[in-house]
């Protein structure tokens, strides 16, 4: 079982069903890889060893009895933003360092119901606010391709864990690029589904009009399998959309020929690293050879997506994070003088620097006298960006472009200037503002570092987007590359 990491999650699920190996064997092998890598990568905040082995043993009994589900016995990890009953759920923050969730997030419950075995909770930027996984209270995550570099963020722990083949798949969340950007920087596949496609119940809220849960895997086929089990209506999430979940796995093989691909003109400009661009252009050639029809499209308001995001997301975060007050759960300061002191010091000491920065930005843009100039204005520009996408999808099936401007950058390189860090999400934020599904897949390397291709589709077109990604992965092998030291 020491070579499980050369298999995809889909293959592992099939191997378990065929009883070629047991879930206990597979889980033990994954745990060994997690242990061996933790000092170098810091991908996990918690490893739930005993529970995982017990769940794996139960999965083996179910498989023997022939009562297994689609994912029975398959090991996965959850981003530590998803509540897990009886297991510490920190969101990468000192604020929740002692928080043991009394319930499971719907995503966690659904994957558990499908038979998946959780191995632990992955590291992340504090409250998912960051693009490098450096803001975690539990220390930065490192990129398996080069430990001097960041894995991207905020789902950097999940991305590093999948890229280093510590687990075959992991959950993640995406508010401005937090699934796709780390997928690109770690050389794996990630999907952010349509807003409302995956329940956000038990997924700790950052910016409620943007947040969406998804997955990180090594292939589009694996992402389709996990997403099929995770997605769907949930009465516990008022933003959940009640529309049937297609069989994303069955839809993978739909023909690509004739697919109308729009190339986002605004993404191919001087901000894009020349070598990154070359890899993306080569991938687009592959699509052309597969029968896709490429045309250039322009979304003139898209360059304003980062400023819109840095008004809307902080505003919503300042409201969502008001619940952390040191009273009902989470961090409480020592010896509060009075109630205001209890709130202010618990929050001042419990939150890290970037979280405080965003809460204050949000507080400012929502405050009397500034609401119209910032928040309302940003919502209006968001409408313009959304209209740009709607117009584009009138003439093309999907949009393609780079996921990030550059490959992975060095730890500490962008921590001193928040704007430089924020601009890392320049190509990914648009899909969040418009609520669109988008994937990132590996499409080549620049100086031994992976590069991501982004595919964005209209609302609820996950099947189309995943099948387009799958078509590329059938004829290329970038997604099978494993970082040195983890092969």
């Amino acid at each position, binding site marked *: 079982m020491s070579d499980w990491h050369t298999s995809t999650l889909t293959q592992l699920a099939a191997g378990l069903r065929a009883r070629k190996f047991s879930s206990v064997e597979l889980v033990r092998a994954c745990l060994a890889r997690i242990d061996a890598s933790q000092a170098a990568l810091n991908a996990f905040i918690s490893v739930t060893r005993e529970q995982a082995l017990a769940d794996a043993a139960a999965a083996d009994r179910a498989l023997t009895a022939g009562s297994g589900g689609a994912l029975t016995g398959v090991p996965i990890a959850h981003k530590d933003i998803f509540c897990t009953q009886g297991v510490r759920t920190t969101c990468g923050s000192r604020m929740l360092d002692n928080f043991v969730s009394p319930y499971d997030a719907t995503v966690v419950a659904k994957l558990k119901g499908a038979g998946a075995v959780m191995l632990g909770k992955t590291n992340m930027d504090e409250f998912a606010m960051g693009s490098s996984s450096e803001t975690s209270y539990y220390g930065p995550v490192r990129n398996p391709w080069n430990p001097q570099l960041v894995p991207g963020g905020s789902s950097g722990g999940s991305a590093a864990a999948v890229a280093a083949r510590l687990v075959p798949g992991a959950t993640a969340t995406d508010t401005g690029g937090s699934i796709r950007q780390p997928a690109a920087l770690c050389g794996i596949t990630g999907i952010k589904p349509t807003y409302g496609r995956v329940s956000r119940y038990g997924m700790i809220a950052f910016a409620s009009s943007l947040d969406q849960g998804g997955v990180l895997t090594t292939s589009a086929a694996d992402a389709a399998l996990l997403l099929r089990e995770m997605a769907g209506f949930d009465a516990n999430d008022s933003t959940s959309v009640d529309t049937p979940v297609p069989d994303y796995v069955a839809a993978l093989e739909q023909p690509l020929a004739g697919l109308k691909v729009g190339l986002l003109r*605004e993404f191919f400009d001087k901000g894009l690293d020349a070598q990154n661009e070359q890899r993306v252009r080569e991938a687009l050639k592959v699509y052309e050879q597969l029968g896709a029809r490429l045309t250039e499209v322009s979304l003139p308001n898209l360059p304003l997506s980062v400023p819109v995001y*840095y008004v809307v997301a902080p505003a919503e975060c300042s409201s969502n994070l008001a619940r952390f007050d040191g009273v009902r759960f989470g961090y409480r300061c020592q010896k509060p003088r009075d109630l205001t002191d209890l709130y202010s010091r618990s929050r001042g000491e419990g939150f890290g620097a970037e979280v405080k920065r965003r809460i204050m930005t949000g507080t*400012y843009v929502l405050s009397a006298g500034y609401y119209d100039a910032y928040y309302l204005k940003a919502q209006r520009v968001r*409408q313009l960006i959304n209209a740009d996408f709607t117009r584009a999808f009138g003439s093309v099936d999907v949009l393609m472009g780079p996921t990030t401007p550059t490959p992975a950058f060095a730890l500490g390189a962008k921590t001193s200037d928040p704007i430089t860090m924020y601009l890392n999400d320049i190509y990914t934020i648009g899909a969040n503002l418009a609520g669109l599904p988008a994937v990132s897949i590996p499409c080549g390397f620049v100086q031994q570092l992976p590069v991501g291709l982004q595919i964005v589709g209209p609302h609820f077109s996950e099947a189309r987007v995943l099948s387009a990604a799958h078509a590329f992965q059938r004829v290329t092998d970038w997604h099978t590359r494993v970082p040195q030291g983890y092969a």
Partner: protein
Amino acid sequence: MILRWFSHFATRAANRPMALTREQIASIAALARLDLTSAEIPVYQDSLSRILDFVSALDRAHTTDVAPMSHPLPGLSQRLRPDVVTEQDRHEQYQANAPQLAAGLYLVPKVIE
């Protein structure tokens, strides 16, 4: 285009017109119930000023007659459900995370003398 746009901010940031004052930062922090150390204030003074300058790019967009967009799936309205009790009493489980409790109540410093 994006780079040009970015360098536009870089130059503007150099002669920023609207730096926030120490007092403004203290007031925002008070509104947000965040206790800041005196060393933190200048850090946020600088970064919040830069962020506000950065987002002022929105002023360039013409938005007359454009409705604000608060939900990414337009046309969907908030779902209603029958007014029936669906939650069970699980206060003991929920309160297991509380910093301070007495007789099933959350304890905070005295509010009224």
